[in-house]
């Protein structure tokens, strides 16, 4: 059915017999840097804006993102190459906070908020398909509107593009694009009166 599927297994099988004695390679580990930017804009987006909230503006409180991945460092694992990233939550939180829209305001205190948002990072990974690299981010978000029972929705962001050189920077860009797509979907819901009404 899928020749690559069988050919891969056969390669494993036949090669095991000793054919690759001279072809084995050493494992390399790439530590990707997934951190929030360190310039002043990164600080600004975290500042509470409660003092300047216009009447009728939706107030949103963000709880810190929880890391719900079974493996909290691995991004991709292949016998010849491993990609890892430590402590990605500040990076995710920054992306969420930086994406705040003028139509709603961030408040620090959940008691003051119309909507309390609790993000959970479910998946963050890279994969390779033929000559394509793919980055995937899955965030589960729990919304609570004015103390009402919560509604949970899962958002997915992904990026797929030609794998030119397999460099760390290339992988980091792919992951940032995937996260940006995911965050855009979350923001689209927060900016949707219909969604807010449905919470």
């Amino acid at each position: 059915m899928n020749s690559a599927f069988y050919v891969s297994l056969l390669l494993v099988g036949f090669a095991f017999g000793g054919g690759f004695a001279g072809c084995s390679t050493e494992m390399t580990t790439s530590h990707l840097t997934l951190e929030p930017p360190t310039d002043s804009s990164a600080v600004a987006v975290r500042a509470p804006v409660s003092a300047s909230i216009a009447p009728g503006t939706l107030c949103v409180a963000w709880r810190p993102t929880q890391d719900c991945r079974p493996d909290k460092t691995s991004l991709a694992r292949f016998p010849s190459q491993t990609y890892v990233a430590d402590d990605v939550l500040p990076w995710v939180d920054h992306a969420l906070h930086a994406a705040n829209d003028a139509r709603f305001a961030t408040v620090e205190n959940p008691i003051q908020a119309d909507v309390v948002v609790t993000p959970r990072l479910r998946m963050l990974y890279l994969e390779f398909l033929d000559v394509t690299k793919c980055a995937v981010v899955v965030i589960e978000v729990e919304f609570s509107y004015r103390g009402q029972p919560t509604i949970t929705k899962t958002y997915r962001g992904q990026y797929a593009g030609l794998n030119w050189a397999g460099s760390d920077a290339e992988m980091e860009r792919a992951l940032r694009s995937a996260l940006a797509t995911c965050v855009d979907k979350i923001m689209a819901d927060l900016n949707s009166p219909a969604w807010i009404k449905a919470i």
Partner: protein
Amino acid sequence: MNHPAASLVLCNRIVQSNLLLFAVSLLLGGCVSIHPSRVPISDQSIKDLGPINAIIGLRQQEIKATAVNVKGMGLGVEIGESLNANRAEKDITFVRDALVNYQPGEVVATDLRGTLATLPGLALAHIDTRQITNDEDFNTWTAEAGNNSVMLVDLDYSLSPDFTAVEVAATVWIHPGTGRLAGIPANGPDLPSFIYFNSFGVTVPFPSHQGWSVNEIQERAQQWSQNNGQIIRATLGSAFQELASMIAYDLNHTPAPANNELYDAPRGAEKGWAGLTDPPAVRGYVEHKANGRIWVRAESGGLFAIGQ
């Protein structure tokens, strides 16, 4: 003899290839020599194994799309493959969303515990699921087990390129517990010695009674995922159950050919193949038939399941 993980290095390099590696991998075809890969376990080894800890190891976080073949060679082909891969990654999100809470390792663990419970000496003392982060994991996990032997199932699951079937692949090692048995030395300091190895493949098509009628890949993805992924979950469950049965069967049957020769069909055996490509990717002989399913023993010793 090399440890199979050494071979996986090249295999996965092809799978993860960027443009440069793809070209290099084509040139490495000449490195392959034909010997059986399967290392069967002897009855005496089973008696000496002691308690077994099983680990279901996963390298992936979600169901994978698989390679999309474009005929020809050159940059145009690679760009074509990339476009197809981009589309496959987009279309498979329907299925991934339906499986976002699915735990394949747990399903396999339950099935494997059940099938091995019936085999004397191979009942599992403990089983769990782990993400494979590094080759060193294998050594660490084996060392942690102490006197217990370790069965490691390296699991992979995906949709076929045309989204008409699920494909499950696994390689299985048994590493002897400390001081129990002299295993076959591994090729590399990070890999423990072993006394059993084989590779398995299971292909299960979309269930025909579900009224499969769509032609577009995106529509197929939607059909797999409807009702919160009821069909994809059931089909994956069926594939994992069969994989567990095949592992149990393989541990209990079929000695290795003499003199390290390939697994040729016994006299009178029905020839078999796996894969719908022409010619089929896997050739071998039919070793087992039941309920519309066929198990093909490949020349390498690997065991492949196909059928309705």
